[in-house]
């Protein structure tokens, strides 16, 4: 039957078309433009490597990429710690399924507002004359406002952790819920301590969730530009911000080259994560 042979293709067609139109085509365009030439107001079709050369040979690029990686590593570590903790509590310490769902929904409440609002609301809180500094000073804990709280790396990491922790909680919570409780009982019967159960049973079984959460956080932080700009007061650079600057100056080919490099880097990171953990096993 011809129809039965075509059927799988027809079933796959909608997704293929959507991905082709909204993923492959834009990326192909970006790759193409990254080889074009430009002056201060126009871009011309061409095939030059200057955009890549200028990007890769500039020490600013390296410093910016290192800075972005620094944010990524710190934010990943903190969100993993906090996310795992919250998910563990929800999965193992809350007994009733209803309560678990209620508390999980509570975690998502901040996400009912826009992430720009959530980020900007830190600014009056952390500022020199902000709530935190004023409270600390009234309590007599400090005499000088703490300047490092705002427009600093601290502020950037804090805002990112706030914005992205839920992306860690959700997949980890999901895998923890699937762990067969009998395994934990068996471990306990075999004489394992609580810590041994955690490291030998729970964490290995939670790896796929950790990997998925890590992919979310790493890609989000690597591509971020608005958090870095607002929370560092424009004093720090990130790759996304560098691209935004280039676009504002109409240097589209340079921004495209940067985007391609960032894409390759993020794909490598994701590949490394997938190499360590086989997420398909659990899905």
């Amino acid at each position, binding site marked *: 039957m011809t129809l039965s042979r075509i059927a799988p293709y027809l079933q796959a067609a909608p997704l293929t078309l959507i991905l082709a139109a909204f993923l492959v085509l834009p990326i192909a365009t970006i790759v193409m433009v990254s080889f074009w030439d430009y002056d201060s107001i126009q871009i011309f079709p061409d095939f030059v490597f200057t955009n890549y050369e200028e990007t890769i040979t500039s020490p600013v690029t390296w410093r910016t990429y290192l800075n972005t990686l620094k944010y990524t590593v710190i934010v990943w570590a903190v969100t993993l710690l906090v996310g795992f903790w919250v998910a563990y509590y929800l999965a193992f310490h809350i007994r009733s399924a209803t309560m678990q769902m209620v508390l999980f929904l509570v975690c998502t409440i901040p996400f009912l507002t826009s992430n720009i609002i959530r980020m900007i609301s830190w600014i009056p809180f952390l500022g020199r004359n902000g709530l935190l500094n004023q409270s600390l000073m009234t309590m007599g804990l400090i005499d000088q406002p703490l300047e490092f709280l705002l427009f600093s790396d601290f502020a950037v990491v804090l805002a990112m952790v706030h914005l992205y922790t839920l992306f860690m909680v959700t997949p980890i919570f999901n895998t923890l819920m699937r762990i067969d409780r009998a395994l934990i009982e068996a471990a306990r019967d075999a004489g394992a301590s609580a810590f041994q159960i955690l490291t030998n049973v729970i964490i290995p079984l939670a790896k796929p969730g950790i990997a998925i959460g890590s992919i979310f956080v790493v890609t989000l932080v690597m591509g971020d530009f608005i958090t870095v700009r607002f929370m560092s007061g424009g004093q720090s650079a990130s790759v996304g911000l560098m691209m935004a600057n280039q676009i504002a100056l*109409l240097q589209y080919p340079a921004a495209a080259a940067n985007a391609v490099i960032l894409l390759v880097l993020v794909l490598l990171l994701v590949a490394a994560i997938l190499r360590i953990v086989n997420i398909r096993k659990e899905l």
Partner: protein
Amino acid sequence: MSKKTTDRTGASGAKGVSRRGLLKGAAALGGLAVGGQAVTGFPTVWAQNPITLRQFGTGVSNLNAIAEKCKADLGITLQMTALDSDAVSQRVVTQANSFDIADIEYWICKKVFAAGTLQPMDVAKIKYYDQIVPIFTTGKLTPESKIAQGTAPNTVSFVDGPDSKKFAPAPTQWMTLIPTIYNADTLGIRPDLVGRPIKNWKDILDPAFKGKTSILNIPSIGIMDAAMICESAGIVKYADKGNMTKAEIDITIDFLIKTKQAGQFRAFWKTFDESVNLMASGEVVIQSMWSPAVAAVRSKGIPCVYQPLEEGYRAWGGGLGIAKHLKGAQLDAAYEYINWYLSGWVGAYLNRQGYYSAVLSTAEKNMTPDEWAFWMLGQPAKTDILSPEGKVMYTAGAVRDGGSFKERMGAVACWNSVMDEDRYMVRRWNEFIAA
């Protein structure tokens, strides 16, 4: 984010009608009626045969009130689009048919006029040409004044002929832009927090203000503020701040990097509201600022002064240019719109916001003597000074920062500009931000 684009339509008379139909109708009836019941002294011909002009430009002068008044006085519908300066330059060059009137800054004009998408205007058709402030024609505010550095408007105001793309050194019959709005910028300070008189640009480097200063992170403007600071501090003496050599750019940026790493700056701002918040919250006490931002801080009841400095001001100015493709009735309408723009109502509106308008004599007639004395002559206000929307901006007795028009525009040290080494400057600027 600064990349926000808004489309504003002043009056929506002819929105659904196709452009082609509009043009045809306009051409057919164009010569028919002149005069009519001219309430405001302008022919009402456009009211009968609606013409739409698409104007785009930077936010400052794209004001809804102007579009509404224009519709009421002339019957011309203005469709205004506000963009940031980078998007404006790009659009003038690459989408020549997407606009009829370009409201651009003089330094953008220097960059884009050569692309040939704008047509110079015949000054014989500009009714108030003789009364335009001489900064835009001869370059000299008074016969004795010196022309400031940077892209001084007079250097890009004229071309040799109707089809020329080459700027003429002296006034000719063909003008590239009709000036609309201009001002002199300086540093804003919090007088209650600086604790000492501020006199020079270099005062922003005072160790007492460590971690309490900011400059703006828009490379083409930020570099000029940086240049004013460096020259004031004696770091370097520029041949032309508006057109630095590579070596001068290097010295300036290296100095900025050193200052940044020493922790002198609290933040860099990119948008108007960021600068207002930095100042209002007390995060910074001295920074680059634009005059409406100072007014915004003050309107919160927080003291803020637009401090005049010994080295002078960094000035900027914009004007209206006509797209190359305009002809016939639409071109006539464009000229009529520009003549109306200079005829006083708009000028008064802009002056009341603290900017300056191109033809002062007509604006004066549209302002009260007290308003004129306050804004233009630098005298203490006799009554409360209201914004164009009717909000109290200054109470009786207040004096404008920097004083009179002559004192402020007479002390311009340099104009916003575009440098020959633009691309190099931007690259180094990004290095400064990433450092």
